[in-house]
Structures are given as structure tokens and as C-alpha cells.
């Protein structure tokens, strides 16, 4: 997760207008979801991977590792869809029969499973493209411009910022416990972990109070107003993205 965040700030597409990246990722995602044939999501996976690795400069090894996460979920889920259990004999069903029940695959089931598999990976590729090239701060800027309620945007922004503060706190408490043998045995580990959780809750509560005080001191009233970075529109990116999506739509309509 930290690596995704770091790449979002350091990739070669960072300075592209975040609105363009969000639009590109979401439109392509939509196409992947509505396309009736598996060919379209397959193209999308290839092109998104190309854009993320080739253009944004994300290391291929890291990108593939990232894909293992949805991949393992998908394989398990899709296998269930592909499998058919029935007591009705079907001509196309191939598998093992036991006590009149057959467990096996049908071509239709396989086709459906493949389609869902590719669609899901295509959608994941679109979201990975967005999260690897666009820092959260920029995505929030887009959300504000899209008139998403300020409360929601502020909440996301605070959550994001304080994930890091929270993890640092966990790390500090853990180190302090471990250096006093708090995790030496299973018994003490359970005990220490419980203490850590309780302590974290108290610290988090105190920190939220401190934050509120500090914000009030700077004139906070009910909205976290901030100055947005003005990114210039990138015409080359916009044109490429538009052409790519258009070709996909035409391809989808033709096939």
C-alpha cells in the first residue's frame, strides 16, 4: 500500500491533469464492464498495463505482484462459476457422476467464467492505472470539482492522512513493547496486542482532539478549505485517451 502511494507521487504521469486520468480510467472501466465480448476487456488489460508500465514507468515486477491480489481471489471465485452440479443429464456436461449427480464443466459455464475473469481483471487494471499514477490529494481535488459533498471529501482526506499517523503510532507502540519482550511468547503476545489496541484507541482519540484544537486555532469552520494545485490540461494525453476509448466503443459495437 505504501508502495502504491509512493509510485503515485513519483510516476511519470504525475503532472498530467488528474481530471483527465480519472475520466480516462472511469470511462475505460465502464467500457470493460458493459462490453459483451471478452475481447474488449482483454485489450483493456493489455493497454492499461502498457500505459502503467511503459508510460507511467511503474516497474513491471511490482505491477504484476499487484495483480496477484485480485488474481487469486478471482481464480477461486471464477472456478465456482465454471463448475456445474446437476442431476439432469446434459449432453455438453463433462465431469464425474456420483449417485446420479454430475459435477463438471459446460462450455457455457466456461465461457461465462472466462468473461467474468477478464472483465474483473480489466476493471482492476483501470483502477490500478488510476491509483498508481494519481496521488489521493489530486483525486480529492477532482472530487471537490465534481461537487462531491465537502464533508465526504474532508473525511477521505483526513482518513488518508491519519492512516500514516496511525501506522507510525502502531509501529512505535509495537517497538516499545517488543523491546521489553512483550512478544517473547504466545501468551505475552496476545496480552501485548490487546494492550496495543487499547492504547491505540486512546491515543487516536487524544490526537483527534488535538487536531480539532489545532484546526480551530487556524480558523476552521466546518470545511477544510485548501488551495488546489492547478494542473494544465495535457492535450496529448486527452487525445490519446479519447482515441483509445473511442476505438474500444466502436469495436464493441461492431462485434
Amino acid at each position: 500500500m505504501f508502495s502504491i502511494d509512493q509510485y503515485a507521487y513519483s510516476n511519470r504521469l504525475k503532472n498530467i491533469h488528474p481530471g483527465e486520468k480519472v475520466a480516462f480510467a472511469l470511462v475505460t472501466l465502464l467500457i470493460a464492464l458493459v462490453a459483451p465480448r471478452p475481447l474488449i476487456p482483454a485489450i483493456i488489460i493489455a493497454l492499461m498495463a502498457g500505459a502503467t508500465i511503459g508510460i507511467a514507468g511503474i516497474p513491471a515486477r511490482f505491477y504484476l505482484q499487484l495483480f496477484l491480489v485480485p488474481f487469486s481471489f478471482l481464480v477461486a471465485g471464477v472456478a465456482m462459476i465454471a463448475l456445474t452440479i446437476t442431476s439432469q443429464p446434459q449432453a455438453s456436461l463433462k465431469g464425474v457422476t456420483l449417485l446420479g449427480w454430475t459435477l463438471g464443466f459446460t462450455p457455457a459455464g466456461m465461457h461465462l467464467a472466462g468473461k467474468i475473469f477478464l472483465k474483473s481483471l480489466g476493471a482492476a487494471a483501470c483502477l490500478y492505472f488510476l491509483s498508481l499514477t494519481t496521488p489521493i490529494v489530486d483525486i480529492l481535488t477532482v472530487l471537490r470539482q465534481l461537487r462531491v459533498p465537502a464533508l465526504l471529501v474532508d473525511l477521505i482526506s483526513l482518513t488518508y492522512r491519519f492512516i500514516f499517523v496511525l501506522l507510525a503510532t502502531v509501529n512505535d507502540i509495537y517497538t516499545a513493547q517488543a523491546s521489553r519482550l512483550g512478544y517473547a511468547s504466545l501468551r505475552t503476545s496476545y496480552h501485548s496486542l490487546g494492550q496495543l489496541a487499547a492504547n491505540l484507541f486512546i491515543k487516536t482519540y487524544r490526537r483527534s482532539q488535538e487536531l480539532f484544537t489545532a484546526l480551530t486555532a487556524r480558523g476552521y469552520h466546518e470545511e477544510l478549505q485548501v488551495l488546489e494545485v492547478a494542473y494544465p490540461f495535457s492535450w496529448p494525453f486527452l487525445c490519446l485517451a479519447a482515441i483509445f476509448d473511442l476505438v474500444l466503443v466502436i469495436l464493441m459495437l461492431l462485434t
Partner: protein
Amino acid sequence: MAALLEAERVSFTYPDGTQALQHVTLSIPEGKKIAVLGPNGAGKSTLFLHFNGILRPQEGCIYFAGARINYSHKALTDLRQQVGIVFQDPDSMLFSASVRQEISFGPLNLGLSREEVGQRVEAAMAATGITGLQDKPTHFLSYGQKKRVAIASVLAMEPRLIIFDEPTAYLDPRSTRDVMALLEDISRQGKAIILSTHDVDIAYTWADYIYVLAGGQVIGAGTPAEIFSDATLLEAAGLARPWLLDVYEDLKNKGWLPATAPVPKNKDDLLGLIPYRSRSKLAI
């Protein structure tokens, strides 16, 4: 010099019964450097929260620029523009993952135009030397860098008085030096500064005037020379004497300095006072 901020017999007790302030009376002159010394739990932070209206005194009152603080929404916004607080822990101040956005928060709350805010953010980043960090997310910054961002976020509101709550705590010597140099710059622009610290050497050299707090009360007030020559007061507040004064007195007692040598204000003053060996024989 006219008083910019005054506290008159301010008392405050927290809901849990801790009596944090008892009849605190003090005055902060315009454009001066004021140090507030005192052990942990002396009530320093509670006092500061009264200075920009976050806490309301249960007894007594606070005056800003001669007028009693008004706790209406509008008046508080004005007050918080004029009185900025840099809290001790930058992580509890910084709410945004973007350095630029963090600094822009205060000035935007003042209702300034976006252009004006942009200029102030640039100026504050330049003054604190963090222009190079503006595109970095706050969570990748070091503690010292976060501290500078926190200072910049207050500077951008252009207050007349800035309160620094233990600004050098946890900082390495270099960052401490940088922060103190920054305070010197801010002071030269005519802003008043309140600094709370446990570092008596910094307080002695830096401050124009010192208040000593203990147990929620002001137990001493005076120039650095007055405060640090009062042994009873230092004992009561649990404060050490600055090494500068110890060395100065020892040199004087042992005859290395003439009895008429002026009390040094900083290290360079003291080194300037110490005569060369050949001439020192004459002094003895």
C-alpha cells in the same frame, strides 16, 4: 511599548478537576520576544489556548490590543488571524497530505482571494525554507521538515503574535538552530513571539522578557538577567541556571574577569569578555 495581549487574573479548571490556571496575570508587549518557562503541567499550553480564544477563562479576562476578547464567531476569526499558535507536535497540526494545501488552509479560512492565498503560501514557504518540499506528501517528511510546514502554515495567516509551544523539542541541534534563526527573522519583522521552552540557555539568550509558571500560577516575571539571578525562583520552578551565567560568575570569582565586566547576553559576549593571557595578569 503598549501591551498587545494581556491576561488579567485568569483562572481555568478542566472538567476532570485539574486546576490548570490560578489568577494568572501577565502582559505581552507588541513586537517583543517573550519566553514562558515552567515545568511540565505548569499550565503553559492551557494559557496559550486562552490567548486565541479556544479556551474561555472561567474567571478573569483576556485583552487583545486593549479590548476585551469577544467570543462571537466573527471576533474569534479575527483574533485567530492575529494570534497564531504553532503546536508542539506537528503531526497533530498537519491534516493534509499536501504541503501546499496544508499551508493554504489558514489563509483561506480568512476569506482571502485564491490569488492572495497563493502568494501568502509562496511567501511562507520561502520564509521557512520549504519551497523545495511543496510537492512532497506530508507523510514522507522528516520531523524537522514537518515542524517547518507547521510554522509556515501559521506564518501564512500573517499574525501579529505567534506562540511557539516548545518549538525545539525533539529537534536535532541543526534544526534547533534553524528554528531559532527563523524565530529571529520573524521577530525582526516586528511580530511579537511567545516561546515556551525548557531550554534555559535558549530562553536566557533569546528572550526580552520571561514569565515563569508553576502550578498554574505566575511565580516570576522579569528580564532574563533578573529571572536567572533569583536562586529561590529557579529552585521553585525546577529550572537550571544557564551555563553562560555559571561560567561568567566562576570566571569573575576566580579573578579572570574584572568585577566590572558586564553580564554577557550570549556566548560571543562572554568570549569577548575573556581577556588574553598576558593582559589577564594585569587584570589580576
